[in-house]
């Protein structure tokens, strides 16, 4: 065991030597808790009665962790934890800044609501097929995507939640589910493969995959490396994930096929991961390339929001209408990215928070309407106002929120985005946002008029009174989603400030970079 001195190195220079404070673990808990919970649920897969409550407990604990994380990030700035003590760029680091923590908190809240709703929606067979483990693993993947600081690790988290979403999508194995899942699976796989191509090219160019390290080194490689190609590939891959026009056709083809709570979580969460990845990669990694691409992104944004909602106008199936409303919302979020100004980015973050809450709520509302009215088709469903006035009130509030009318949460992000577009002189983008708002109002108001106000043709008492009692739990859950939406609508200041904080971190990522490399770039 003769060790020559030439072969020994001082590992202290490459490793974290300071002890990690217990409080820093809050960075990893939003990912680690759902993984542990999902693993335990997989082990006890036959005790289906336990599943629901264990999943709710784990989701609640994750919600507590993400809340603590957000509080700390607001107080102290970006938090970094490096796996296995190897300092970045060698080790994989988890970096939580205001943007990631806000998204993670909202996503975890919605997942908790979904887990509660699933208690009444998913039967024992669905639970035995693994609904709850997949739900928690999907949450782990989504939170991991929001918090990771490494591009390849982002790819891995993408795959984690995509594979879990496959499991959720084919739960029940009906014909239409398999049809929808085929299209969803193939297109998502192509999108992640394109992402991987970009990752490989980026590694070949810069020799690093740590996001902060890329941001530091990207300036030097601008003359020699194919950075524009890489940025465009990333735009393509994440745009596909986010269902931006013209890459959005997988979403309306598949999101209406699974169980309604699965649709709700997909519509709320999965496309927003694409938006988050676009924000992070375009603003922090490739800021100059984004400027070049901004016209393209603006056209994509306008087309997505207007053509998306036109798709909703042409549908008669309630779930497919909501699917197209989700697509239209993606366009509104892309508008902020196209502008790139702090105000526009704040609008995007605010709209994303609103959209995660409201799109989930819309799908759950459609589920309750199906229970009350017995159909998803606008041709058949009618007379719900007479039978379920409370459901009508909730539906009315959600229509206002989704259309961006006061006093709910949809108003403020659109106000911010329209102002940001006018500030940038892109008046046509502002018009597109307003037109898509009007069309959303028409599409959803028609649903409300036909499903709630129209009398049933047989004129008898609708659907029976027994259904009203069963809907009780569903009302409470929908109200749980509406409360934050109303709060944002009436008192937007705290959330707006949070969105501005997140946007400031994107426009000027120096604090984020400093948190990863405290000694400056290249140390």
């Amino acid at each position, binding site marked *: 065991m003769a060790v020559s001195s030439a072969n020994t190195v001082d590992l202290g220079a490459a490793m*974290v030597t300071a*002890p*990690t*404070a*217990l409080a*820093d*673990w809050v960075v*990893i808990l939003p990912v*680690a808790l759902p*993984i*542990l919970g*999902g*693993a*335990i*649920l*997989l*082990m*006890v*897969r*036959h005790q289906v009665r336990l599943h629901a409550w264990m999943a709710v407990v784990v989701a609640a604990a994750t919600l507590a962790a993400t809340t603590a994380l957000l509080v700390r990030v607001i107080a102290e700035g970006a938090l970094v*934890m*490096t*796996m*296995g*003590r190897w300092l970045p760029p060698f080790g994989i680091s988890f970096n939580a800044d205001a943007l990631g923590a806000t998204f993670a908190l909202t996503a975890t809240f919605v997942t908790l609501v979904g887990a509660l709703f699933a208690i009444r929606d998913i039967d024992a067979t669905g639970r035995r097929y*693994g609904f709850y*483990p997949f739900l928690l693993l999907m949450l782990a993947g989504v939170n991991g995507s929001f918090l990771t600081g490494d591009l390849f690790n982002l790819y891995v988290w993408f795959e984690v939640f995509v594979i879990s979403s496959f499991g959720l999508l084919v739960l029940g194995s009906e014909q239409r589910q398999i049809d929808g899942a085929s299209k969803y699976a193939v297109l998502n796989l192509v999108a992640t493969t394109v992402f991987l191509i970009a990752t490989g090219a980026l590694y070949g160019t810069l020799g690093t995959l740590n996001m902060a390290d890329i941001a530091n080194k990207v300036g030097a490689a601008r003359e020699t490396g194919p950075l524009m190609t890489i940025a465009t590939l990333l735009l393509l891959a994440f745009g596909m994930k986010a269902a931006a026009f013209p890459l959005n056709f997988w979403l309306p083809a598949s999101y209406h096929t699974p169980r309604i709570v699965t649709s709700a979580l997909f519509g709320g969460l999965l496309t927003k991961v694409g938006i988050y990845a676009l924000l992070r990669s375009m603003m922090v990694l490739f800021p100059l390339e984004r400027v070049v691409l901004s016209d393209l992104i603006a056209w994509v944004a306008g087309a997505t929001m207007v053509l998306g909602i036109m798709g909703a106008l042409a549908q008669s199936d309630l779930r497919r209408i909501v699917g197209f409303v989700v697509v239209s919302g993606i366009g509104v979020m892309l508008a902020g990215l196209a502008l790139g100004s702090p105000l526009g980015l704040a609008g995007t973050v605010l709209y994303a928070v609103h959209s995660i809450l409201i799109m989930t709520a819309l799908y759950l509302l459609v589920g309750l309407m199906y229970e009350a009215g017995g159909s998803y088709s606008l041709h058949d469903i009618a007379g719900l106002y007479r039978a379920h006035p409370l459901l009508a009130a909730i539906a009315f509030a959600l229509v206002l929120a989704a259309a961006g009318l006061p006093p709910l949460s949809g108003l403020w992000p659109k106000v911010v985005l329209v102002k940001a577009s006018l500030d940038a002189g892109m008046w046509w983008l502002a018009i597109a946002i307003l037109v898509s708002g009007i069309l959303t109002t028409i599409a959803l108001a028609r649903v409300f008029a036909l499903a709630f106000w129209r009398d049933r043709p047989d004129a008898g008492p609708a659907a029976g009174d027994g259904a009203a009692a069963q809907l009780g739990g569903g009302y409470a859950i929908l109200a749980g989603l509406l409360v934050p939406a109303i709060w944002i609508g009436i008192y937007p200041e705290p959330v707006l400030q949070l969105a501005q904080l997140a946007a400031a971190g994107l426009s000027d990522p120096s604090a984020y970079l400093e948190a990863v490399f405290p000694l400056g770039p290249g140390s």
Partner: protein
Amino acid sequence: MRTVIFRTSAPYLTSLMVLFSVFVLLRGHNEPGGGFIGGLIAASAFAIYGIACGVSPVRRALYFHPMALSGFGLFLAALSGFASLFFGVPFLTGLWTSPEILGVTVDLSTVLFFDIGVYFVVVGSVTSIALALEERERL
């Protein structure tokens, strides 16, 4: 595929392959090998057993459902990351100890338990896919 030769040799082949997979798993400690490749070897062993003798004997022999096995693996791997919680080092840091058990020095580490977790995840998920495909073939 249910020839006499294959059916007779399959149980021996399977047991040998499972033994070899454990060897590869533990060899990964210091040499090429490890949980992933070991898990694949074990999963292909169960797939061979399934081809030779049918799927239900495999499920009986495994006793636990394959997905439960992979859940256990995931749990073990995640838990081995949490061991560093008590030593003031970041998540997933490798911690080593070398206790003397019956006069033999045994190197134990969180990395080893993580690798065993990977082994179970791979065995469970690949076996469940292979068994699902084998079941369909007879339809």
